[in-house]
């Protein structure tokens, strides 16, 4: 592996993951980076940016400040902004330059907390890890600070964990999930964090089971398991596979045991290769098998979510175009973001499925809400069309 990406983009970074995870929770997110870089985190990677306000700021790091380690202006500016906007909390995270400089976010957070009288999270993002690790880091830190000591009132209450537009898009799928579960008599206590709030986050302990819909939710799920003993289920309730997720949630709540129904797909030498985030791709693989009868396997280049995968699936710790091309070359059909096409063999049936963390807003409008409805309503499952990628 050479960790190269010449013809395809790279996934959104951990910094974007923090911004996305905290977008709707009423805090103020400050990224330590050069002026102008807010575009990367908040416009390119954040489809909510144009419709919904969120306090996301850039410190405007300059060359002189980097050289001289002038963190006093950063502290002054953040304190002034906090006084003006009165956020519920402050999250301070970083980018590659402060990472190389060795910026101590925990120490800066401590100073800011004393100065502002607000909870401040120091999140040591580097800008070179994946969005999943950033979202996980932000949520887990927030849970440690804000989660109330509450217990489940009912055995049919769940939380949804790991929900960001980076993985789910903006197609109403979170509302559909809530409607699906509520329709089956299961109360959705809280969602982390699309459509959620800090008040919801505080009561995360009051669920009997957690549903992890993307691997960014696994860290929070493990935290909630340690603190409250809550079991978690990995899977997205998509297509006909939604019933399996529902059943697993009920069993997990009853038994207290973690479950991963999405790892029940074929894996190994599966005919259809689904590429992307582990929980989403594995869930889609299960749903596809139901409707097509064809064996599916998963390729996840994001280094997380092994819990969701089947034996023989491929989980890479780094994005690598050459390895991706090798895997695609052996597939009978491919389901992936359209921007993977340049490294897919010409003639192999390709089902395009946009993934915001990979292609930003390029294909946002084409990402369907697949919650608890047959995939055939959203896709041509005959895989009849080939694409125009190079041989």
């Amino acid at each position, binding site marked *: 592996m050479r960790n190269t990406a010449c013809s395809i983009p790279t996934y959104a970074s951990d910094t974007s993951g923090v911004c996305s995870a905290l977008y709707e929770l009423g805090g103020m997110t400050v990224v330590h980076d050069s002026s102008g870089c807010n575009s990367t985190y908040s416009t390119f990677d954040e489809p909510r940016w144009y419709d919904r306000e969120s306090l996301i700021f850039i410190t405007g790091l300059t060359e002189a400040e980097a050289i001289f*380690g002038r963190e006093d202006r950063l502290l002054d500016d953040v304190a002034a902004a906090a006084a003006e906007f009165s956020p519920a909390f402050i999250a301070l995270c970083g980018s590659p330059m402060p*990472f*190389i*400089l*060795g910026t*101590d976010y*925990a*120490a800066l957070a401590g100073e800011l907390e*004393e100065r502002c009288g607000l909870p401040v999270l120091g999140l040591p993002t580097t800008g070179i890890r994946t969005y999943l690790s950033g979202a996980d880091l932000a949520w887990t830190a927030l849970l440690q600070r804000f989660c109330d000591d509450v217990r489940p009132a009912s055995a049919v209450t769940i939380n949804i964990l790991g929900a960001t537009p980076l993985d789910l898009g903006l197609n109403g799928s979170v509302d559909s999930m809530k409607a699906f579960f509520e329709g089956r008599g299961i109360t959705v206590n809280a969602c982390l964090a699309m459509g959620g709030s800090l008040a919801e986050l505080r009561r995360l302990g009051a669920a009997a089971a957690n549903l992890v819909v993307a691997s960014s939710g696994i860290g929070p799920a493990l935290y909630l398991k340690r603190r409250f003993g809550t079991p978690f289920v990995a899977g997205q309730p998509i297509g006909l596979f939604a019933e399996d997720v529902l059943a697993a949630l009920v069993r997990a709540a009853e038994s207290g045991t973690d479950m991963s129904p999405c790892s029940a797909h074929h894996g190994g030498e599966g005919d259809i290769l689904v590429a992307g985030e582990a929980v989403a791709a594995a869930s889609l693989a299960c749903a596809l098998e139901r409707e097509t009868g064809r064996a599916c396997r998963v390729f996840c280049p994001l280094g997380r979510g092994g819990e969701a995968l089947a034996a023989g699936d491929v989980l890479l*710790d780094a994005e690598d175009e050459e390895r991706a091309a090798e895997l695609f070359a052996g597939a009978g059909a491919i389901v992936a973001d359209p921007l993977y096409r340049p490294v897919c063999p010409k003639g192999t049936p390709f089902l395009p499925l946009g993934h915001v963390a990979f292609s930003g807003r390029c294909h946002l409008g084409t990402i369907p809400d697949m919650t608890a409805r047959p995939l055939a309503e959203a896709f041509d499952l005959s895989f009849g069309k080939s694409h125009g990628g190079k041989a």
Partner: protein
Amino acid sequence: MIKLAIYGKGGIGKSTVCANLAFCLAQAGRRVLQIGCDPKADSTIALRGGERLLSVLEGMRQKGLSLAADDVLRVGAGGVLCAETGGPVPGMGCAGRGIAAALEFLEKQDVCGRFGIDTVLYDVLGDVVCGGFAVPMRKGFARHVLIVTSGESMAVYAAANIAMAVRNFRGRGYAVMGGFVVNRRDVPDEDERVNTLAADFDAPVLAEMERSSAVQDAERLGRTVTEAFPDSPVAGQFRALADAVRTRFAAEGE
């Protein structure tokens, strides 16, 4: 738990002080880990019979994510566990970032927990020239800073700069000043200069090492003077330093 970061002007004898202190503390029953924080990766050489270790950063370069703590840890004289961060060749890369990355690696590997370590010594390159070189004094790493100095003007100047950095980090939960160690060069007014420095920063002089050829003789043998010539006067002075360190810093966290 004793966790010390040892700083001082380049060439002042930090590694000599650190390795001898490590050996004496180990002889006194402590479970010691010495981490050289210098691209030269030679901090622990006198504890290893002149043998160099695979540094953490070189290990990362060679093995990537498969690198394990056992690849870069070796037991030295007296049972001292030895590690070197290593770093880039002179004039290339970023040594400060390297030290930060290497220390984070060792932290994640839970070396102290796995090996029952109760004493960690960070032997840090020269001045605190950038953020990376301040990592050993951050929260979670060293609790106290020892500065090695002589009475020479440049050594005192460097020591004062480092002590200022420690003072500037007050309020961040970083390591605090533990004291000064004098490595004598027999310059005029040496005691007065060092005592003034210590008074300026309200920190004690923990021990004084005389100028002794026994130190160099031992290093030629690839050993510390406390191991090679335990009856020499300077070996006794190192043992006195170890006693002072145990008396002052061992109680915390135990």
